[in-house]
């Protein structure tokens, strides 16, 4: 996989952050993926993906205030950068153009 492509789970993680809007830190991201995919991903995998995306310049992060329900620990908020949005868009275009007319095979939108 080259520089310009995203892994499947990387896309999932980016989309989850976008879905969450402002409240995008580890715990809700994990919950969001679990809610939408129907399976619990492993935290370890998520952290690794987030770190890799950040290193590639596709995410930025900042620490928030500590909260008591986290045992007094700070949250690390993630923001999606424009470069990531570009890649996601390209991926979507690729999917749409390649899957055009294949609804009978792929089972449509359902």
């Amino acid at each position, binding site marked *: 996989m080259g520089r310009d492509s995203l892994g499947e789970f990387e896309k999932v993680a980016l989309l989850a952050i976008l879905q969450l809007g402002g409240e995008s*830190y580890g*715990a809700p991201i994990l919950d969001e993926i679990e809610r939408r995919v129907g399976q619990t991903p492993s935290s*370890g995998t998520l952290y690794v993906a987030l770190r890799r995306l950040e290193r590639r310049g596709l995410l930025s992060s900042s620490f928030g205030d500590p909260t008591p329900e*986290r*045992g007094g620990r*700070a*949250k690390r908020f993630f923001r999606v950068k424009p470069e990531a949005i570009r890649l996601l868009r390209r991926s979507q275009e690729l999917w749409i153009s390649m899957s055009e007319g294949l609804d009978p095979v792929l089972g449509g939108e359902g």
Partner: protein
Amino acid sequence: MRTPLILAVVQRLLRRNDREEVLGDLEEGYRRRRESLGAAKARLWLWRQTLSVPLRLAIYRFAEGVSRRSGARPSCSSQVVRKAGIVPESVVLDHLFRNLRFTCRSIRKRPLFFLIPVLSLSVGIGASTVIFSGANVLLFQGMRGVPNANRMVEIWTGRNGVGFRELNYPDFLDLRDQATGLKEIAGYKYQMLTLSRGDAGERALGLLVSANYFDVLGVRALKGRTFLPEEDRDLGAHPVAVLSHSFWHNRWGADPDVVGSTVYLSRQPYTVVGIAPQDFRSHSSIGNPDVYVPLVQHPSLNQGRNYFEDRNGVWFQVLALLQDGVTVADADIEVATVFQRLSDAYPETNTERTASVTAYGALPSPARGYAGAFLAILMGFAVLLLLITCANVAGMFLARSMARQKEIAIQLAMGSSRGQLLQQLLTESLVVFFVGAIGGVALAVWALGYLSSLTLPGPFPVTLEISSGGGALVFALALALVTGLIFGLLPARQALGLSLVSTLKNEGARPRSSEGRLRRTFVAAQVAASLVLLASAGLLLRALQHSTQIEKGFDATDAYVTFLDLTTEGYTDESGSALQDDILEYFSALPWVESVALSIDLPLDMSTYGSAVVPEGWESLSDREYMSTRYNAVSPEYFSTLRIALVEGRGFEDGDRSGAEEVAVVSRIFARQAWPGESALGRRIDTQRGNVIVVGVVDDVPNALLTENPEPLLYRPLAQAYGDETNLVIRSSADPALIVGGTHGGLRALDPRISLSQVIELEQFTGIGIIPQRIAGSLASSLSIVALLLSTMGVYGVMAFTVAQRRREMGIRMALGAESTRVLRSVVLGAFRLTIAGVITGTVLALAVGVVLRTFLLGVSPQDPIALLGAALAVGGMVLAGALVPACRAARVDPVEALRYE
């Protein structure tokens, strides 16, 4: 709500900059799930989540580091999405995990095929590691706790350059003054002492050392001090002692006030001035002294016998520290030159006396040759087993990769790279080898601990200090890596070199000739190596059996021995002699004692006393001035207690004491050499202790080693030729516990303060000499059993595979009327054809190994037919056993079934 414990554990496994985020998220997620799902499910979630995080992050960072170093960027493989959320981090990790998972699956499917090679690898690697550690410590390294080991040398004297003997004090002083390449030179002498704090003493090993001994070794006292330079001067004027850490700790409970207190060494008061450090066990691995005393105390601990002025004999050993830049070879030349000068200056004492310098080692130079040969043989056994195991594992993987040919071909056709497949195949074999290595290290650590705790029986406590260390671990892992790579690559290469088209066209079920050849080679190698192991085991066992049958000339059964050193107990020659009489009288009166004797030497005890004598008429027989003979001083009942047969004349009697006529008994060989063809009775011998008359001739007994030819032996009555260090031998068929208790009790009854040593069965004591054979024999036989088992599996594997391949052919043959016995025979014959090359190679190798073993065979021929035939029969049986099940399966092939197949 409390923070779950697991988070506290994981906290330690995370990097500081990950903690805040990860722990917070986990705790938050846990609390939410606790509210919605309940405590149990939430806890399960937390455990599953928590355990993966530190591992994943660590692996990510590792892979990132690797790819950054190699210039590549970690990329994300989206090829394989097993389920949402589990996407491999990088190609390397993806494959590693996949391969490991795959390996685990195949282990679960066939646990035995994993367990047997792992166990045998553990044995092979463990045994190699133990022997490697032993060799490393005994032959190549100095002792632990000796900082100067690398700069130290041993100095030995010899006669015309031959032999390893001690030095005397005047030569030692001259050497110290003249040899400029030696920075420091220290002397030491072992001596058994009694050690007490005023009550009943115990026997302890003492090391008498020159004052600079600790400085030469570079060792400082743990408490107090070592010896001062002035403690090398004025004989007997320095009753000071340094205790070993283990003695201080184990016997005196690490009493903090011991420095400055008084101890009694051989009943003389000494002041404890220091405690040696904990990891220091003297310069040598064969004795762990309990107490160190200045060498100048030697006369006062030995009844005033003063050897310090004497240039005639030699009596203590020497270590030296080299000057910077001086090599062992330089020092050797210089020391030889000094001794040449001494020989010119003192021709009457130093003629023919030479000296040599050898590198310092934990084992003194004279012992290294024999120990090295012994360890090399043991190492050979371990390596053989390792080779068998490796061949077995490789054969197994080869078989499996052949069975998976089609799967591999499909993967290749789908675009998997050969490199990836190679990784997968290699992972499997490396896992087996590494688990085996871990087992081997565990085994080695246990075995080394056990070996180090052993004390060999004897008057002198001989212990082996062999530690497993980092070196052993590295050795085992390196061994596993190298063997795993070689024996994993061979089958993998074969599997990947296959032709895609023919395999996919379902011709894959037929083994290509090169594959079959490799597998057959593995089996033949296993057979050959097993044969060598079996033959060696057979030879060594024959040697042991032979040792019990050798005409020893004495009977060690039902006899017990303990040791008395009367000088160290403070006895003079007169009082000691009186005590010896009392001991004999006391014990011979006890009802459970059949007979009792004292002697200064025993047969087969690895020590000898030599003497130079002139028998009557010697001048006309030989141009040598003296006849050299072994020497023993014994009490009257000695010959009957050891059941040494009287050939002529009489043994000693109670009347043979000082004042009466000085008498001697000689051995058969002595009589034959001194007076060939004539009776020895009434002949006279000039000895170092005066002229004596021969009153009897007894049978020969081996003196030090079972294999030696009997040497002349001269016996004197102990009552006429007093010796202070004696063996007390008691013949009794009573209960051993009673004998031990009765012996110790009797000695204490005669002298309440006497120190006691072990009471040992004489058989065990005289068996010290065959300990190498015992160890090698039992190691070789246990390894051969493993080897046989593995080779049987190897043969079985190949034959089962062949039978499965030829199922159709056999069906056709049977359909055409072949009898099932013919099919059976053809399979069994096939197995023998398979192994014949191995048998031939193995036999040739076994003959060669026998020659190497010769030193240890106690006179058994290296071509001993029973051992070799036995090994060949065992291998034949093994081949038959391995072939039988597949052969029966072949004979039961139903032609209709076989032909309908496919």
